[in-house]
């Protein structure tokens, strides 16, 4: 056995993040570690990478017990980790980012030429092409992921930990990454992948270990299991099948006419966008991120100005109106970047919860503590938001729990029109089930929903109608009941719709 983690327990005060966890890894194996947010996956990997010390338990590499005090120790034992949020220097080239920490030198000087050559050799050896001279700032997220992996390979990693590696990638990049992982594993490298995307796990993993509430619920061979069984092991119960009723669509809740935003460059950010969303309808917008979706949502919600176009919400012309007016006309908005737009990290859970609910929670301009507590604690219960208390600062909530808080806040506005941008990004299966269920419930209640997601499966599962955005234009419109993944992928990549 290459790596054994034996009876690892990690407690923070009264909270036990890992409870007697046994985990092992064979040479050349891809071993997936799955579980809901807060199940203890990340803690276990932080222990392995020397960022945390276990309360009890032992780590053995090739049968020999080791103790890591910091990541340097772990790297010394040929363990490498690629974090969920990339840790690259955007202003530097790919080669410079890869050799960082072990730069080749000539005398006292950094030897840039050798760095380039070594990067090229490495990328050829492992079949992961990169341009060493390119600046990281100019790279796609898929390319940055590749640079991260090459960086740990350059450091001599034999065991590579990937934390949510596909979270930000496009479908094509995901495919390429999975192929690279398989190739590297075949050449003798071993992988631990933390993920919650079961379809990808099933495709790439040899074995799968499931964690729930800090306990191992099982380790299975990928060939002996299926997605339903894994979900059950993660959540601890059967998942409810989503029910979507057939609905008659009503009047449009939003109507967008010839919306355009000129960009700083030659290409417009939004180019003559026309669409509507009707009562009882979910319209999904698919597209690789950066093709104008963010600008479209921000323009609709009044956060950025636009050069041309008319926007009508609930029959009211809100062209050029303020955010407040637009919200009052009937918009609720689950923002795409929850940390940037969706919360104030230093503020408490209840403070973050009442944004937009001030009318109902204040009297004569004074906040009503009791009303606020009732409102927010009802959401905490209904959505299973894990928080110390209502006065816990938002920054101490995990991403998934924060997302549930935002979703609860926006749904509670019960507006006729809802923007749901990446509503389940980074949340676990259980939370995703709740959020999807709530969105469909709003649809049943005759709300119109504009869903933007980089997850094709999510778009296909929830939408009645699918719009595909490419380079600021709506490249195609498809009926969700008959659209196929191939059709959408093709439109996303700039191809023409077929059939």
């Amino acid at each position: 056995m290459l790596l054994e983690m034996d009876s690892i327990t990690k407690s923070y005060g009264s909270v036990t993040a890992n409870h007697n966890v046994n985990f092992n890894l064979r040479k050349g194996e891809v071993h997936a570690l799955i579980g809901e947010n807060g199940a203890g996956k990340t803690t276990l990997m932080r222990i392995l990478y020397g960022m945390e010390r276990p309360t009890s338990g032992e780590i053995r590499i090739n049968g020999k017990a080791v103790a890591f005090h910091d990541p340097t120790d772990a790297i010394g034992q040929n363990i490498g980790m690629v974090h969920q949020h990339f840790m690259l220097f955007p202003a530097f080239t790919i080669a410079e980012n890869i050799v960082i920490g072990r730069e080749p030198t000539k005398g006292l000087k950094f030897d840039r030429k050798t760095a380039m050559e070594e990067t090229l050799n490495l990328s050829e050896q492992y079949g992961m092409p990169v341009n060493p001279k390119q600046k990281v700032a100019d790279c796609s997220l898929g390319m940055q992921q590749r640079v991260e992996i090459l960086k740990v390979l350059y450091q001599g990693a034999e065991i590579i930990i990937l934390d949510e590696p596909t979270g930000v990638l496009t479908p094509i990049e995901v495919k390429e990454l999975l192929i690279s992982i398989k190739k590297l594993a075949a050449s003798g490298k071993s992988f631990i992948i933390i993920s919650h995307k079961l379809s990808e796990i099933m495709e790439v993993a040899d074995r799968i270990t499931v964690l729930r509430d800090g306990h191992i619920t099982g380790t299975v061979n990928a060939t002996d299991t299926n997605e339903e069984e894994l979900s059950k092991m993660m959540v601890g119960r059967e998942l409810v099948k989503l029910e979507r009723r057939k609905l008659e669509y009503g009047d449009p809740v939003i109507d967008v006419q010839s919306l355009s935003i000129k960009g700083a460059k030659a290409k417009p950010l939004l180019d003559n966008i026309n669409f509507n969303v009707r009562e009882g309808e979910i319209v999904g917008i698919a597209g690789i991120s950066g093709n104008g979706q963010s600008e479209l949502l921000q323009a609709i919600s009044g956060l950025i100005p636009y050069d041309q176009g008319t926007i009508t919400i609930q029959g009211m012309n809100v062209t050029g109106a303020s955010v407040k007016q637009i919200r009052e006309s009937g918009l609720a908005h689950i923002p795409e970047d929850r940390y940037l737009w969706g919360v104030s990290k230093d503020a408490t859970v209840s403070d973050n919860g009442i944004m937009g609910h001030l009318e109902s929670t204040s009297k004569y301009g004074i906040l009503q503590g009791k009303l606020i507590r009732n409102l927010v604690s009802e959401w905490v219960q209904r959505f299973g938001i894990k928080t110390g208390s209502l006065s816990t600062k938002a920054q101490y909530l995990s991403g998934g729990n924060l997302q549930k808080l935002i979703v609860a806040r926006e749904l509670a506005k019960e507006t006729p029109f809802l923007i749901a941008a990446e509503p389940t990004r980074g949340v676990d299966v259980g939370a995703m089930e709740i959020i999807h269920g709530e969105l469909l419930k709003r649809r049943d209640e005759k709300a119109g929903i504009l869903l933007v997601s980089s997850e094709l499966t999510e778009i296909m599962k929830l939408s009645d109608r699918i719009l595909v955005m490419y380079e600021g234009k709506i490249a195609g419109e498809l009926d969700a009941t008959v659209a196929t993944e191939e059709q959408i992928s093709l439109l996303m990549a700039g191809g023409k719709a077929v059939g």
Partner: protein
Amino acid sequence: MKSSLQSLLQPLIAIVAGLLVGAIAIVIVDGNIVETYREMWNGAFGNFYFFTSTLARATPIILVGLGASLAFKAGFFNMGSEGQMVLGALTAAITAVYIPGPGWFKAIAAIIAAMIVAGLWSALAGWLDSRFGMNLLITTLLLNYIASLFAGYMVAYPFKDSTTNSALSQTQMIDKSVFFPKLFSGMTLHIGFVIAIVATIGLFLFIKYTKKGYEIRMLGGNPLFASYGGVSRGRLMVASMLISGAFAGLAGASDVLGTSYRYLDGSLVAANYAWTGIMATLLANSNPIGTAIAALFLAALQTGGMGMERNTDVPLEVSSIIQAVLILFITAKFTMSFIKRKKAGAKDGSTN
């Protein structure tokens, strides 16, 4: 509970570091550390007279600090307290001298006029920022010079005191009937201190429990989140700068009506009330109650320093050294939060 302890930790470390460096300075000038600090304590709190003098000195510092704390809470770096305070004091003095009526009426009119003028002066900078994108930090700093020099001109020419032969640039003395009542006879402490304490509690409640206070906190915490939630940055900016300046104006009025009884050119600037108030706010992380406590501490440092100089061979400068260390700590923190906000501003869709 844990987080409030943590927020106390930073200022405490700064104060302890200041006292330690001060101790080194005392050793260098051959003083006795324990004795020197004891004299300093006595000078600030040693008897009832010294204690009330410290409170009197803290009064304008608290009021200025409160104004700055409101602006900082909303994320606006109002560096213009000095100019706002000067204009407030000038307005209060002129109003008190020239408006007819009974004493209490003159006093109230002077306070209100001072708050309005200082508030508008401050709101001007807010408006320039929200309307034309002129950086608030820079405009408020520059407006200080305009205010001080303008006030200097006013008391050197149109409103110069002609009742005495004094060559000083100052207004006439206000009538005795307008003086703030003293809290204890024979002491310098006046009713302005009570106003400052009430204002402290009022501002604390306002920020924590009102809708507008909530919007100010969210705007200061994450401006993008606030705008996403429908909070109008421009209007809130002008409004919070208005109130912030009004506090500085109140500080100026309180000095004129309670201590100086006239506006004397340069006296407020020399006493450094405004910058000490800003320091108190930064030390207290813009918490109103913390600001009042920090203001009291800084005032004690100054009155205590004088006591120390009277009774030991250690020079007053030791007080300045302790303050300087505090400033060093605060500047580092302030710069960090300024950089953080610059970054957030760059991502703000509305400003590109």
